[in-house]
């Protein structure tokens, strides 16, 4: 998968480059609109990450020009402006997703993954999800650890399902709140941690190999080891 990152701030550009490359993407970077359009002219990309505040032109114009050139690949907009109008304008003018700075790399990776999947052929909706000896039955809304049934509330099941679907990938608290609770809030207290802690008590019961891991400073990951 080939991505183009258009970002004028060299520190952010470099960290995006490194993060995305480590995640397995082939990344080209452009510091301004002009060089971005020059690259777009020659290469074919599977996705774009565009900052709105470029030194030579508006990021939205870059997106418009790409669209005019026939590029249909998904675009993730980055912006320091948080206003709702700005977000709506960005999504109306060719953006597929919108992120405000500052953001966690984990969240950016999740969003990029989502965007790229959007273009791919729809997969068969799974009925069962499995990680190690943890199995989720999405139809009966049941979770089993080995042969033991794990008693979960609806909310806990939704949280576990989200973790399992993203098994092996770090998810942030913001992502959990957004995807599981459908809320864009930024709690000042450890509400998400307590939710995870409760879930972990049930899923990683005594004697079982722990599956839910805390990545300090970032979030959580569900993985085998």
């Amino acid at each position, binding site marked *: 998968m080939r991505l183009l990152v258009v970002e004028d701030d060299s520190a952010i550009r470099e960290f995006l480059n490194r993060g995305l490359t480590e995640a397995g993407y082939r990344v080209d970077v452009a510091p301004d609109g002009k060089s971005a359009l020059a690259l777009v002219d020659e290469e074919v990309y599977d996705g774009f990450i565009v900052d709105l505040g470029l030194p030579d032109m508006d990021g939205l114009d870059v997106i418009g020009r790409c669209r005019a050139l026939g590029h249909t690949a998904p675009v993730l907009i980055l912006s320091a402006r948080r206003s709702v109008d700005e977000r709506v304008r960005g999504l109306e003018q060719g953006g597929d997703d919108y992120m405000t700075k500052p953001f966690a790399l984990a969240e950016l990776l999740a969003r990029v993954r989502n965007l790229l999947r959007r273009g791919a052929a729809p997969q068969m909706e799974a009925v069962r999800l499995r990680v190690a000896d943890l199995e989720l039955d999405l139809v009966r809304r049941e979770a089993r650890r080995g042969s033991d049934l794990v008693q979960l509330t609806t909310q806990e099941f939704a949280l576990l399902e989200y973790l399992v679907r993203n098994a092996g990938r770090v998810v942030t608290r913001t992502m959990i709140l957004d995807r599981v*609770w459908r*809320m864009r809030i930024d709690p*000042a207290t450890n*509400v998400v941690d307590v939710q995870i802690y409760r879930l972990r008590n049930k899923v990683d019961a005594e004697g079982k190999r722990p599956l839910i891991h805390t990545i300090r*400073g970032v979030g959580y990951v569900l993985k085998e080891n």
Partner: protein
Amino acid sequence: MFLRKTKSQGRSAAWRIAIWPTAAFALGSAIAFAIMYLLIAKDIRQRSDAWLSGEAEVLADVSENTPRDALYDRLVQEVAELASREVPDTSDAHGKHQASVLFLKTEPRQEPIWVGPTPKELFIPAVTSMPLVPGVPANVRVQGWKKAFRVVYHGQKDGSGLYLGFADLGGAQMLDRLTERCLMVWGVTVALGFLITWLAAYRTLTRVERISETVSRIGSEDLGSRLPEGPHFDEISRLSRTFNRMLDRIQSSVNQMRILTDSVAHDLKSPVTSIRGSLEVALSDADQRQWRERVAEAIDGLDRLSQLLNTTLDLAEADAGALQTRKEPVELSDLVKQLVDLYQPAMAERGHEVVTHLQPALIEADSSLLNRTIANLLDNEIAHLPNSCRVNISVRVKDGEAELTVEDNGPGFPPGLRSRAFERFVKGQHSTGHGLGLAFVDAVARAHGGRVEISDRAEGGAVIVLTLGEAVNEKVGR
């Protein structure tokens, strides 16, 4: 120099304000006086004309019916003199007695009979040369006489003519006196009116002037001083009051700005310091496990920083009236229930018991802002309550307005904090927050046409009541 200039401007404004009503008053009263004068003059003339016509007819009758003998002239003359005595002689301007009635009978072949003022040579040609219509009084001017004579003429069958004239000196004098007094009264009234108007305008403008002097003196250094509001409740006092309210607002925003700048600086400095510290320690640390711990600490610190920035920006937007809301129908009780579900475990971990009473309340609201607002309130409860408290959360519709109440049996608000709880960066002594929470809640409530009220319960504990505008339950037929 500046002071003098503004003073003279104030005076000229008073002058301008006074001159127009005075002019209008002067003109109006002058017209009224003139009309009165004309009516009186007309009345006087009508009376004297009536007397003149009657007398002339009697005289014509006498002269007609008296036999023409030697006594004829004498008789006519006496009758005429009798008639003239009916009118008291009046003195002229010099105190000289003047006969005000003239009688002339002209005969074709004889000397005319004359009764009246002297010298008759001056009067006879003046009277006879006038083309007079018999029986109709007309004005005859005689040289040397200020007042014209009203003269009536009767022609006689024998070709003689009979003239009776009357100069109404009494009426004229009365009119003169009237005019004189009217002019005096008029002049004094106009002058007095002008003076009063000018004084009133001047006094009022002096108050305005004082306001502008005081306001111009109030710089950013002296925002505490206020205009005297005075005992009156007139426009000027309202102006003072308005200025004072404006100064109150300016002062409080300036104060808030100072607090904000100080607090942001303070709140930014400590996390920046600790982040820097963590990273420095990480750099000099050889142990990789320790190193990860430091970096994680730094990221936590950065998260707190960005949270502070976001809330500060939200509040700045709210202050500028630019808090953008995307309103849609939201079931408040559902929204609260979701948040309570999210917060319940964290509350339970601290031994709090959460009791909810949620009644349906459909409102037009920005659900994203509401989520953050209610999360804020719940964060507050977690942060400030000692362990094992009871938290009541209820949603209801009261007087058509949706109302969310969060109530606890904790220690309540610290004394002195309650009145200022909605100001930015105001926080309790032991609070670990940045003091923006309730200010944000307040801003969101106001953006929804509602309000936040906080109080202490009589039996201990705090109550926060968030009103979120009109509930639309009925409208959609729920």
